[in-house]
């Protein structure tokens, strides 16, 4: 990766949700969804956040564009603070950063025609009527939908086409940065590959920067420049794509990679690192490593201290007290094929 300047800088971002209150309505119990997460995304790159259900990856995406208020931390977009900007200024920032949701069945208004849905995306550009129409047609074309689709309703479209509409709506605002929250998870593989190719082409043509949120390791490996792995609200490891998949250092990343189904290896799946034990509850988590309860390399210290994120190698961070490279029988080595 050539050193491009950062476009997005996330510092110590945290978010807790109150889940229980006392008689006076004061929260007594908190769910820690995102905890002190920091990372940087450079101009023109694809940074992926990968993690399992409930690890906080979608919340993270929403915090970044202030769809939900963060508790602590800061986000700098192109050097400007997202959290402290005025309403007016936030509007301008949001035109430059757009979010595409996972489910194209529920993220498009069923009562609006495709043309209207997409043209809504242009409202911050303050275009005239004719301009708006032209812009709508232009972005529909960019995502590979014919003009005639503008007059259709979402229910008339297939899942892949709807996701194209959702992408077109995001592009209509002429953004520089897209947060893609599981954009292909609801799609069949043959359609998924079409949408992934489309995202790749759009990135090249429009020099876009992506934050790609996904649970699908194969997709992440395909599309990313750099990858961050989340576990229960914590970013546990961040590295270059090839480094992360080839040489994972955090035990959770190693377990995750070893669990990817390997079709040609039927019967040899005993090499998988199995995670014993129950996952820690994200509700009022104790001050310890959140992965310790399932970790196969946990040491005493992991139960009493929170491991800080540290640079393990150039461009490779991990938060773990007991870092070790993957062994031959598990982890990353199997990913090299």
């Amino acid at each position, binding site marked *: 990766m050539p050193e491009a300047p950062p476009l997005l800088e996330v510092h110590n971002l945290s978010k807790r949700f109150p889940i229980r209150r006392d008689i006076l309505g004061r929260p007594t119990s908190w769910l820690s969804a995102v905890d002190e997460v920091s990372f940087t995304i450079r101009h023109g790159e694809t940074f992926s956040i990968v993690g399992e259900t409930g690890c906080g990856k979608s919340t993270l995406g929403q915090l970044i564009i202030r769809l939900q208020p963060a508790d602590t931390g800061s986000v700098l977009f192109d050097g400007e603070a997202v959290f402290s900007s005025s309403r007016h200024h936030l509007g301008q920032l949001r035109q430059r950063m757009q979010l595409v949701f996972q489910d194209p069945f529920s993220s498009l208004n069923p009562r609006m025609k495709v043309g209207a849905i997409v043209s809504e995306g242009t409202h911050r550009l303050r275009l005239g009527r004719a301009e708006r129409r032209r812009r709508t047609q232009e972005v529909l074309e960019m995502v590979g939908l014919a003009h005639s689709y503008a007059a259709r309703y979402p229910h008339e479209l297939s899942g892949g086409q709807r996701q194209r509409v959702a992408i077109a709506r995001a592009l209509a605002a002429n953004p520089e940065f897209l947060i893609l929250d599981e954009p292909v998870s609801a799609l069949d593989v*043959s359609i998924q*590959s079409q949408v992934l190719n489309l995202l*790749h082409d759009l990135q090249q043509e429009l020099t876009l920067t992506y934050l790609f949120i996904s649970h699908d390791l194969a997709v992440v490996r395909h599309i990313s420049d750099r990858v961050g792995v989340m576990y229960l609200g914590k970013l546990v490891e961040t590295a270059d794509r090839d480094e992360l998949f080839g040489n994972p250092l955090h035990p959770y990343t190693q377990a995750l990679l070893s669990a990817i*189904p390997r*079709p040609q290896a039927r019967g040899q799946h005993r090499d*998988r690192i199995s995670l014993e034990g129950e996952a820690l509850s994200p509700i009022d988590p104790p001050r310890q490593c959140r992965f310790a309860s399932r970790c196969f390399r946990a040491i005493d210290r992991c139960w009493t201290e929170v491991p800080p994120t540290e640079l393990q190698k150039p461009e490779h961070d991990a938060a773990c007290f007991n870092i070790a490279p993957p062994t031959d029988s598990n982890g990353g080595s199997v990913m090299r094929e």
Partner: protein
Amino acid sequence: MTAGATLLRLLDLTVDLATEEGEVRPVDGVSLSVAAGEILGLVGESGCGKTMTALAIMRLLPEPGSRTTGAVQLTDRDLLALPEADMRRVRGPSISMIFQEPMTSLDPVFTIGHQLTETMRAHHKIGRHEARNRAIGILEQVGIPNPAQRLNDYPHQLSGGMRQRVMIAIALILEPQLLIADEPTTALDVTIQAQILELIDDLRQRSNMSVLLISHDLAVVGQVAERVAVMYAGEVVETMPTTTLFAAPRHPYTQGLLRCIPGLAHHTGEDETRLHVIEGRVPELRNLPPACRFAPRCPYAKDRCWNERPQLEKVADEHHLRCWNPQPFHA
């Protein structure tokens, strides 16, 4: 390959459904067999007829409204010819099914202990105490910690992976000869998915159970299945050993599907940042192509593919193909 005798044989299985827009045929002439102790993978994209095939085997399709023809032979009995009362005795002890969504297929108002013992007591004359002991035993087998305490839990108290294990436990408690697992891991995280697949494979080895594993995920199927059948628009287009699926599939659809998957196939050629694409989309059931159903999306379609319907024919040992113009696979 498995030396086991054939346990399940589908002959020309066809399902017609009445819909508001007229009659459609989501499953059309499916013939397959599963040997004792074998895992057969059934793969295909949404709407190709995989789940309909499973429901037709179990005779769980609504009547009236649907018509199932052909034959479903379990050892020597044709299930389609059985009276409903006899069929009820087949479901459970002979064939059981795991559904995709564990949250919607467990009853939320009963404890999991109740749901397990109820299943047993519906089919066997056993006492409460023994049923309870067996329930604890099966929960232990599917890897649920503290099974005796878990018996008193309601489904909402369990995590997704645990619920799916409970579903599997319910499906297995009567020791069926055949397990139909419909996307058993699709709703689960990858670490849990790996555990569930190992569990299914373990149980197969221990009790010589057969499994029909339905999935849209070729990698999942490839990890545990011995043979694979690929469905497209209601038809089986290719069946082959799993090793052949990844090394030398012949049907253009199977090949395309394999190449679409990031990181699975070797993306030969020009630009490794682009994935293979199957042009077009799955045809609507009401508007199927005249002969080969894949022809409109097939890069190798020729005149014959538009005029004459290809049949599923044997091309090698254990390898059957429905195609007029099969292609060598360049890996």
